């Protein structure tokens, strides 16, 4: 399995790519079906997604809520374009609890041999927002680090 790549592009973009050993249709479904999203879009160990609403149609809204003990946060967004099974365009924001500026995301699923190459391109309003997001989006990663720290101490 090829490794994920995460790169900044220009001042306002973040591009993530990952290859999957499944058809574009399967990967697309795993990105739009709430029952499937709840199984994998969880970040580090310990987090669950008790609420996963995804109205997968143009103009549809989604809401993902994550929890880990007493900690929780959520993401809301709107789906702008859906091209089964090749492309999703949406906007999203994290609520921490104040909403972050809108992140505009285009996700492509292209057949690649026997699998799928996914490319997710995020566009933030400005360089400051992107820098803050790269710092703030690590809330959940931090939790995992604390757990690791507890193991060390």
């Amino acid at each position, binding site marked *: *399995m090829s*490794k*994920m790549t*995460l790169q900044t592009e220009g001042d306002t973009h973040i591009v*993530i790519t*990952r290859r*999957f*050993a*499944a*058809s574009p249709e*399967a*990967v697309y*479904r*795993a990105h739009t079906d709430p029952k*499937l999203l709840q*199984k*994998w*879009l*969880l*970040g*580090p*160990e310990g987090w669950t997604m008790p609420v996963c609403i995804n109205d997968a149609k143009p103009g549809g809204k989604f809401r993902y809520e994550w929890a880990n003990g007493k900690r929780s946060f959520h993401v809301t967004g709107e789906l702008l374009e859906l091209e089964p099974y090749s492309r999703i365009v949406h906007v999203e924001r994290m609520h*921490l609890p104040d909403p972050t500026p809108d992140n505009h995301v285009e996700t492509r699923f292209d*057949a690649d041999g*026997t699998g799928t190459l996914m490319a997710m391109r995020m566009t933030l309003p400005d*360089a*400051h927002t992107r*820098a*803050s997001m*790269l*710092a*703030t*989006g*690590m809330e*959940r*990663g*931090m939790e*995992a*680090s*604390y757990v690791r*720290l507890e193991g*060390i*101490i």
Partner: protein
Amino acid sequence: MHSVSNLDAAFSALADPTRRAILARLARGEATVMELAAPFEMTQPAISQHLKVLEDAGLVVRRVDGTKRPRRLAKGGVEAMDQWLAMLRKALEKSYDRLDEVLASMDKPKRGEER
């Protein structure tokens, strides 16, 4: 190599969204307290308090320039930000590793349809 207590101090300092935003701003270049306070709608004393936490954690250093004391990211601050980015990467990788398992367990297309 950081000692555990330094690492702990750095993570505690990074646990606050304002302090992470200050680090994100300083990652783009040095700035005075006044410049740092402007986008946050906070008073300069409040920003100074956050800066003290960041300085005590070894993430931010100050320089003397006449009457100004511009702050910049310390080497440790750059490393801490890199570490945060690495953690975001890990969080995403963990999710996608799970997605591999979900995809493997999803209904397979009929044999004849497999590419």
